[in-house]
């Protein structure tokens, strides 16, 4: 019951946070210089055309009225209409979030597959050659810019070896997932580097704990000590880091989307900011805020599952 109360309380706390997000994003978009109508019409737009466009965009209304329209629409689950694309923002986000979610899932799986074994291995081998090689590798992975790694992967696995398509996102689901492997791997590498470091530190710390020695001295098999005593404890700190990375990845990566020609949410937001398409920016940032808050709540809940000392109240 306590848990349920806690979750309800947390969900209610989300409301004022989201309200603040709407105010912030509304003000910030209007503070940056550049008139949306001007951007839309370019150098060739005449003053009359610009005035007509401003009216069409509702920019001739007071800020308060504009904010009220935005908030009112939001309460009716309406994210507004993109002036640039002439399409409802919710439709645009729906189309693009699928790409970003797929990319996030693929890179998350790849990151888990790579970082857990390597992190664990370097943790138990801390100080020796094996551990140092993994350490150096993760340092290199986190230092290399992802556009460069992405291009390198495209040249090697796409152009030279022909194993993967060179950018794009295909038509069918198998194609979608297949074409996500190179970008997923590129994105996973940066996450892996962070995770490996974190797992390695946790593992070497936990190995020194009395309860691990105690478990061994009790005669518990290695497998049990590892899964119940070491890995479970490593998970606690890793989950926080990982959930933050996932929330970050769901925000879309402009670099990865550009290099691999993926029509994801990152490019949509960039387009919205550069084109001063207020509806797109307000809509996507709002959705991000919801995602981040949801991820935080999810992390806290998973804490209580992993660590019985943590109580949800």
């Amino acid at each position, binding site marked *: 019951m306590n848990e349920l109360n806690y979750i309800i309380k947390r969900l209610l706390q989300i409301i004022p946070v989201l309200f603040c997000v709407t105010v912030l994003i509304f003000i910030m978009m209007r503070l940056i210089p550049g008139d949306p109508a001007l*951007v839309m019409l*370019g*150098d*060739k737009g005449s003053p009359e055309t610009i005035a007509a466009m401003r009216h069409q965009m509702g920019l001739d209304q007071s800020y308060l009225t504009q904010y009220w329209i935005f908030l009112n629409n939001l309460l009716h689950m309406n994210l507004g209409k993109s002036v640039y694309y*002439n399409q409802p923002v919710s439709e645009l986000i729906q189309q*693009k979030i699928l790409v970003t979610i797929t990319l996030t899932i693929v890179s998350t799986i790849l990151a888990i597959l790579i970082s857990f074994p390597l992190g664990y291995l370097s943790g138990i081998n801390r100080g020796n050659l094996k551990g140092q090689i993994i350490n150096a590798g993760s340092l290199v992975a986190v230092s290399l810019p992802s556009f460069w790694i992405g*291009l390198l992967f495209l040249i090697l696995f796409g152009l030279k070896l022909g194993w993967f*398509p060179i950018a794009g996102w295909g038509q069918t689901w*198998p194609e979608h997932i297949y074409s996500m492997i190179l970008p997923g791997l590129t994105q996973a590498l940066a996450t892996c580097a962070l995770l490996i470091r974190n797992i390695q530190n946790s593992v070497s710390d936990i190995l020194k704990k009395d309860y691990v020695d105690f478990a061994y001295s009790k005669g518990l098999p290695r497998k049990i000590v590892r899964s119940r005593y070491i890995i479970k404890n490593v998970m606690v700190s890793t989950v926080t880091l990982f959930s933050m990375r996932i929330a970050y990845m769901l925000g879309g990566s402009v670099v990865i989307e550009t290099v691999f020609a993926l029509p994801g949410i990152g490019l949509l937001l960039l387009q919205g900011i550069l084109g001063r398409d207020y509806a797109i920016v307000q809509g996507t940032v709002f959705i991000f805020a919801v995602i981040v808050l949801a991820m935080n709540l999810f992390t806290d809940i998973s804490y209580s599952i992993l660590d019985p000392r943590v109580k949800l109240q």
Partner: protein
Amino acid sequence: MKKSVRATLLGLLSFSVMLSSIGCGSQTSTSGNTANSNASKQIVIARNADSADLDPVNAKDNNDIWMENLFAEGLVQSSADGKKTEPALAKSWDVSADKLTYTFHIRDGLKFSDGTPVTGEDWIYSLKRARDTKSSQWAFALEDVKDVTAPDNTTVVITLKDPSAAILSDLSMFNASVMPKAYCEKAGDDGISQKPIGTGPYMISVWKKGEYILFKKNPNYWQKGKPLTDEIKVTVVPDDNSRIMQLEGGQIDVATNVPYDQMKTIGSSGKLQAVNLPSTEVHYITINTTKKNLNNGKVRQALEYATDKDALVKTILFGNGTKAISFLSSEDPHFDNNLPDAHAYNVDKAKDLLKEAGLPNGFEVSLVVPAGNSSAQQTATMLKEQWAKIGVTVNISQLENAAVSSQYKSLQYDIQLHVWTNDITDTTEWVDYACIYENDKNSFTGWKNDQIEAWAKQAKIELDENKRMALYKNIQEAFQNDAPLIPLYAVPYTVAMSKNITGFVQTPLGNYRFQDLARK
């Protein structure tokens, strides 16, 4: 320990088998969409950004404009070389003696791609919508049109407020394309922007925003036997390198917006062709002539003398382009071929002029460039270096495009870098913008020259081509002397394609014409 390692390995193995099976399965179907397997059916063209609004009336930028002629056509069109107007859906036309009434004779049996016949009502609706849509940046082209009538389905009569030299050219612009009235009224602006219907060689079949547009052959196209290719898929690949790699890997047939520095390598690779297509795109420096020092014509001339345009062409365009001496493009029908390079690179001359202007030690000037525009940034850096030789200090700063544009339109800048591309074959569009003050403060330079303005206005209504040519010649000479803009270079459209692709036509105005596009 051993067991767990084995389990992990097994897990990894099964995952990789799963991936590779997905891989194999999709490789066949992926290549189904790629260039090679659909030899005669589909041609894939990759560009750097998607269209936003394909409604011919509300088209926003080149990504929209260049696509319009694939599915929409008007009474007349610009010729492939962009220099004159030729028949399109109208096979001929008569002009009244007072030059105020144009009667167009429409081809028989025309149908839209959805199968409905083109009626006189459709023409009236489409042309009036193009003229009267307030938020359309292209409405200016039809501002001389007083009325449109259609005595029958194959006759369209356009009456003008005043005689206009450019009216045919204006009517050849994409916004004057015919669209079905019933469909448009039902679909509204939003509907038309997503799926416009016209009489062009192709029709929009699928549009996945930010991903691709699939054009299918229009079964009702009036030119028998055309287009030659069944489907054209225009994909979006924002990164230049990825786009070229896709072309090298045979995943696409054509890559547009090829970076200048890659043209030579692609052309010499043997597998691909790199083509520079003539365009009307001219890059120039805009000078705010309301600012101190820059309000002096001698100073502006000095700046042009101090600009080594050949070096810019060599370094920034890698030789793909030419130095510009007139603000008009050499592809413009009224470009003066005999115009002298009056302010050719000459540092001494520039220094003398600055001395005459009372600025022997030079002065400081700020140059704001749009962030992320690498060619503008390179140009700015080179100008800083070149102008330093005459003592002019250029302070470069970067701002986002939207902010640069706001400064430009409110004349709150010293100098900026801009680009112009014509949308109609006639010279009036650009000369109106650059020389008739009331429109746009003469391309937001704040400069005024009554004589040039009078010539520009006269050239708009003068119907004798020889006299017009003489007027535009005068305008170009006088404009060059006043130097409110410093033309830098003219660039081509850079396209790379497989060797077996033929019939890729892009007019100097940018419009794609894919009737004859095919794979050999």
